[in-house]
């Protein structure tokens, strides 16, 4: 590696990365150890395995930094295609772990290609948007961009791993930054709101109330000759949406999905069955109080009350053992990293690096928001890991690659003209 590269690396994000990974390991250790002696060769222990994953990810970092920055842009398409193939290959060679066929088994370890597909998709999207001929304002090009994003998600959903597929919503951020009309945002947010309202109340009531509001607006604006047909169309679309949401929710969704939504919306209280995870996680976090019970002292963590605690629910260990203070620090670390990366993305001179940077921020943010939102009981249970923190080799490697490709691109920005 050239000396200039080392100087040009954004050490702030590297530091934040290291803090998250280090603190993450400490919590994985606490959540998964059980009084046995610490043995570095004991591969049955997740916390030991995670040490190797971290060590190997350092090697990955060095490789990403050693590779020429131009490589990523030039081979983005190839990487994307390879990634899609690896996802498709799961249907033939995949290994099933806890119900989801998402892994390749290599004997000594398993890899989850969906964790790498995010970075590949980010590269491909960046490549497409930075093409001189691409204009995001054109419907045709918008559709192509959507296709790049939706393809991996469509392959992931039937594994089934809807959580990982949901992450692809993150690519809205770079698209929006590159000029995608705000109408999409408004429609998206309205759809989400209508979705929640429909679940909370009966669809008929939602439609009636919205129609009433529209009528009131029309009465007020009647002198300005409003386009009645447009209003009519809107209410028809809304009515259609609400009733189809209701239909899909009740007839297409499986009971477990319905339960997850109902619990977060407060329509159901169930602390033993499906709500058990969230409830136990809240108890563990809540019992942490101001400064927590101390490392390895969490009674909930030790008793194994929170399922998947060293993976998706790792943040509950933080909450219990490090308290409000520790949990807030972790949130600040994430927010700090995300803001730093947004800033870095904005300072890129090439459109490719910028789109990629925004994709990285988007992906990390979605993971952060959905994972912690779920653990602290604000969002329905969606199984996705907390970046850098959760146990898991593929996840750690995927996020490391995602982040450090961007750091490499960023360190190379002075060479871009």
């Amino acid at each position, binding site marked *: 590696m050239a000396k200039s590269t080392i100087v040009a690396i954004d050490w702030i994000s590297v530091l934040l990365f290291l803090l998250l990974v280090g603190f993450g390991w400490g919590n994985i250790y606490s959540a998964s150890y059980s009084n046995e002696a610490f043995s570095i060769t004991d591969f049955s222990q997740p916390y030991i395995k995670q040490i190797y994953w971290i060590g190997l990810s350092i090697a990955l970092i060095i490789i990403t930094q050693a590779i020429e920055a131009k490589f990523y842009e030039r081979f983005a398409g190839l990487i994307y295609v390879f990634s899609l193939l690896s996802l498709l290959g799961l249907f033939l060679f995949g290994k099933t772990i806890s119900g989801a066929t998402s892994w390749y088994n290599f004997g000594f370890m398993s890899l989850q290609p969906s964790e790498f597909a995010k970075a590949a998709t980010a590269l491909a999207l960046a490549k497409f948007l930075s093409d001189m001929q691409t204009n995001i304002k054109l419907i045709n090009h918008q559709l192509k961009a959507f296709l790049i994003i939706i393809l991996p998600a469509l392959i992931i959903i039937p594994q089934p791993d809807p959580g990982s597929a949901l992450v692809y919503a993150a690519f809205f951020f770079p698209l929006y930054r590159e*000029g995608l009309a705000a109408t999409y945002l408004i429609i998206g947010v309205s759809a989400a709101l209508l979705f929640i309202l429909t679940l909370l109340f009966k669809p008929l009531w939602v439609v009636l109330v919205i129609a009433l509001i529209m009528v009131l607006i029309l009465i007020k604006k009647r002198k300005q000759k409003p386009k009645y047909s447009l209003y009519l169309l809107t209410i028809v679309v809304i009515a259609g949406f609400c009733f189809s949401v209701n239909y899909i929710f009740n007839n297409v969704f499986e009971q477990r999905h319905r339960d997850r939504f109902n619990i977060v919306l407060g329509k159901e209280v169930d602390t033993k069955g499906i709500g058990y995870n969230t409830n136990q996680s809240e108890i563990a976090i*809540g*019992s942490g109080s101001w400064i927590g019970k101390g490392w390895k002292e969490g009674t909930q963590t030790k*008793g194994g*009350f929170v399922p998947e605690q060293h993976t998706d629910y790792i943040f509950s260990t933080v909450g219990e053992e490090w308290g409000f203070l520790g949990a807030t620090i972790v949130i600040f670390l994430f*927010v700090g990293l995300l803001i730093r990366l947004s800033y870095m993305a904005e300072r890129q001179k090439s459109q490719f690096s910028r789109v990629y940077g925004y994709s990285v*921020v988007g992906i990390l*943010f979605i993971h952060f928001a959905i994972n912690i939102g779920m653990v*602290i009981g604000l969002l329905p249970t969606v199984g996705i890991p907390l970046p850098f923190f959760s146990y898991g080799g593929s996840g750690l490697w995927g996020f490391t690659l995602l982040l450090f490709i961007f750091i490499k691109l960023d360190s190379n920005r002075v060479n871009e003209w």
Partner: protein
Amino acid sequence: MRKLLLYLIIISTGLIFVARLFYLQVYNTSFAALSEDNAIKVLYDYPQRGAIYDRNGKLLVTNQPSYDVMVIPRDLKPFDTLEFCSILKITKDKLIKRLKKARVYSPRVPSVVIPQLTKDEYAYLQEKMRKFDGFYIQKRSLRDYHTTNASNVLGYIGEVNDVLIKKDPYYISGDLIGMQGVEKTYEKELRGLKGIKRIQKDRFNRDIGPYKNGKYDTLPVNGKDLTITIDEELQSYGQKLMENKRGGIVALEPATGEILALVTAPNYKPELLVGRKRSPNYTKLLRDTIAKPLFDRGVKGAYPPGSPFKAITALIGLQEGVVDTQESFSCYHGFRYGKNGKLGCHPHRGPLNMIPGIANSCNAYFANVYLRIINKQETPQKGIDNWRKHAESFGLGNYLGNDLSSGSKGLVPTAKYYNKAYNYPKHKWYATATVSNAIGQGEVLATPIQLANMTAAIANRGYFYTPHIIKAIDGQPINIENYTTPKYTTINKEHFAPVIEGLHQVYTQGTANALRVEGIEICGKTGTAENYTRVKGQRMQLTDHSVFIAFAPKESPQIALAVFIENGHYGSRYAGKIASLMIEKHIRGTISRTDLEDWILTHSLEEEYAKPYSGEPFKINQ
């Protein structure tokens, strides 16, 4: 805008998360409690409750093992309710009701389903226990009584109620606590401290070892043994004399304030309130609203003291300098005042000065002295309050501050009391309106223990020790300032000699001359207290209460006592006889006058008590 949106979303998400964390971790404390329930099982190790001995080292109360069936509702699995109910001899409805109640209390914390099994029930159930998941047996100890008396002093223990659990976090459902008497007052000493073991559990509710390696575990501390001041022999003798009578006897040791005997009649056997029979027996005792066996007359019964109060009137008169020992007052079959006011008196020779005045209990003499005491001050208000100050210094009119779990203030009226009664200043009142106080009638009320304490203060010539029941804790004599420092009355020492001489002559030539005990110099005072009751809203006078106070011997007294017999007619009829027997029993240990003893044992007042409820007209003081 396009650039800022991302920052906005990231930062607001972070803030929402921090706010939610604040709510979960700091604001809402219920999660911490849930976590305790969740992950840590608490086991209790109950220590032996302390034993209770009497002043001579006689064992009164120890323990017997008892077994409670406990349930942890969330661990319950379907079981054969029929078998369970038949083993424990309860109905299915009752079982379901109790399980429901336990679940409401807490699904994780153990609750009692069936308290206090007998040894046989326990042995049988123990074998079947493995069939009933969620139930377990908690060993506790119940009281075992070696006496059939003194239940009013000893009190009883019972299961803590919800109110107490909330008030004192030491107790959990099913714990036993002292509810009355010594058990209540000395609960902390007797109970010891239960040991606590915390077990860390995993989510399958399996034990995975002591929580934090037993760092927070504690060993049980055994309860302390108490020695109480009661002389069991005297107590049970008193109880025996009081059979078929209602009232109280309180005997004190003047030199220490120790309560030698505290008898109330009717009473009940302490073993009635042990274990599972406690509840029905207690209800039965409580429902007896006429004899009121749960009402400790010795400490709670506030009665007009009658003539014994004359000793106080005499002492105050001497202290205030309104009379000397030589001055005589005439008695015209009583004391006349105002237009047609009259305080009657029984026939006796006259006129009398102080010592024969006491010995013959002349009402007119004390009415004169009392009026002088009140009228010495400018207004009757000031006079009453000054008089009250003296009476109060004998422990009358207020709680004694003793270690008995209940008591009554009695009443020594204030000027304010009369102002209110006579609607002052609209209507004026004068000393004569209160003259009945002179002879312990009128407004004055005192409990037997207050009278006994007053007697002890006279016996000590001017001071008393607060009466108390505790003598030693774990063999160590108590050193409680309240019980070891004398409380001085407002009367100078020299004024006691003539009054005590008067009390002595009560025995040698006065109203109790028939009750002498050869070789023991007793000082005492008879009392005959008029009293009224309401039956079906009708106020009617009942046969007088028979009252007696006494101490003996005259010099360096060993016992001071007050005897109060409801509707026992005149003082020496019942109370005086009982007092003299109690004194002889305490000082001699044996009774020489068996005829007197027989008379008391064979005479019942039950007929007298039935009169007002018979619905027929009756005569009093026969």
